[in-house]
């Protein structure tokens, strides 16, 4: 057997022997260091802590070399501990980088959500402004439509509101029952009032001075109520209507001529667009 072969064999046997003896007393510090170093080395973010990982690898290599010569366990453990420490430092730095990335991502997403919400708010308020404009236009249109619709009914604009005067031809003499000739007018009034539920109407009955004042008062009340009933029967809300009898005390012309008395026998409908005005106007 040659000298070289002897060396190789002896080294091999020594290796086997040392391996056999090393297996039973596995050093925990070293094993832990190996695991930790391997873990950080295989991390996809290893580049962040490259210097610490290099330190860990150097210490681990030194520990591995020392582990082969079993005489210097303390030195080996020191190097293994240093390897583990460097690996842990690297690991914490990687965790920090990950957390910072999450913060950056989260902040960006938060910003995106905020911008979205702001855009939505703008859209919302634009839509609201549009709605308000449409509503305003629509209500203006309805006012217009009431005025145009009732234009041919001799609607008068007064400081009390729009006043429509129904002449006494709507009623039989001394009666409070509406004649069928009044129905067309009532239909149109009712449909106009149904469209504008916020509109209020004050119905006032008036008479001439023929007959007793009490009779005239009662008649004026009943006629006003007849108009009110006619309107509610046509679907107008009861709350939109106030009916009052004013008797003979508010003539619009002289009671000394037949024409004058005829104009004084009337039912007036006063349209307002708010409750307050109706309430204040309701009193005599």
């Amino acid at each position, binding site marked *: *057997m040659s000298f070289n072969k*002897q*060396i190789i*064999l*002896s080294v091999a*046997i*020594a290796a086997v022997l040392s391996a056999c003896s090393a297996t039973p007393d596995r050093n925990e510090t070293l094993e832990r260091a190996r695991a930790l170093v391997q873990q950080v080395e295989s991390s996809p973010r290893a580049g962040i802590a490259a210097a610490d990982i290099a330190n860990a690898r150097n210490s681990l290599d030194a520990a591995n070399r020392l582990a082969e010569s079993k005489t210097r366990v303390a030195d080996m453990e*020191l190097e293994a*501990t*240093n390897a583990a*420490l*460097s690996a*842990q*430092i690297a690991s*914490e*730095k990687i*965790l*920090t980088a990950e*957390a*910072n990335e*999450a*913060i950056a991502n*989260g*902040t960006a*997403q*938060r910003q995106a*959500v*905020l911008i*979205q*919400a702001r855009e*939505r708010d703008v*859209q*919302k308020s634009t*839509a609201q402004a549009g709605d308000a404009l449409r509503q305003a236009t629509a209500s203006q249109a309805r006012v217009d439509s009431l005025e145009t619709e009732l234009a041919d009914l001799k609607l008068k604009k007064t400081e009390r509101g729009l006043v429509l005067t129904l002449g006494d031809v709507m009623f039989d003499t001394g009666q409070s029952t509406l004649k069928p000739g009044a129905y067309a007018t009532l239909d149109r009034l009712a449909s106009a009032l149904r469209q504008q539920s916020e509109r209020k109407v004050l119905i006032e009955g008036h008479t001439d001075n023929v007959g007793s004042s009490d009779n005239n008062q009662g008649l004026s009340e009943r006629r006003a109520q007849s108009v009110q009933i006619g309107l509610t029967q046509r679907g107008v809300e009861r709350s939109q209507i106030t009916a009052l009898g004013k008797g003979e005390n508010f003539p619009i012309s002289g009671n000394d001529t037949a024409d004058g008395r005829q104009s004084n026998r009337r039912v007036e409908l006063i349209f307002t667009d708010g409750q307050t005005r109706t309430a204040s106007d309701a009193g005599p």
Partner: protein
Amino acid sequence: MKPSVAAPRKPLPLRSVLALPLGIGMLALLGACTGVSAVTKERVAQGETSLQQAQQTLGQSEHGALELQQARDKIAAAKTAMAKGQHEQAERMAAQAHLYAELAVAKSQSASARNSANEVLASLEMLRRESERNSPTTR
């Protein structure tokens, strides 16, 4: 059977080769014992600086507190070794103290970064829920 006989005989010359540097090393160690070198003092001082910096960074934080204590212990060990003239041991302890101090700082930093990340994610989640609650009314 020859190799097995050769095997125990072979390391003998190896040992004799190692004997010389070992002997020199021992002499060097003995020489060191007489006085601590400036380098050792410097390294221990560096370890102590790392420890102080870590203490300042951590404050009362519990994250890394254990490692900070280890760093203190190692500095103490380094000083003891230095007092005994064991300059190599002193340097090793100082180096380890530095590693522990660094780990303490890394741990406290990663803990506070994770805390912040969790807060950001929680607030993002809340914001999302809120905006989802608001969005159907606008549609």
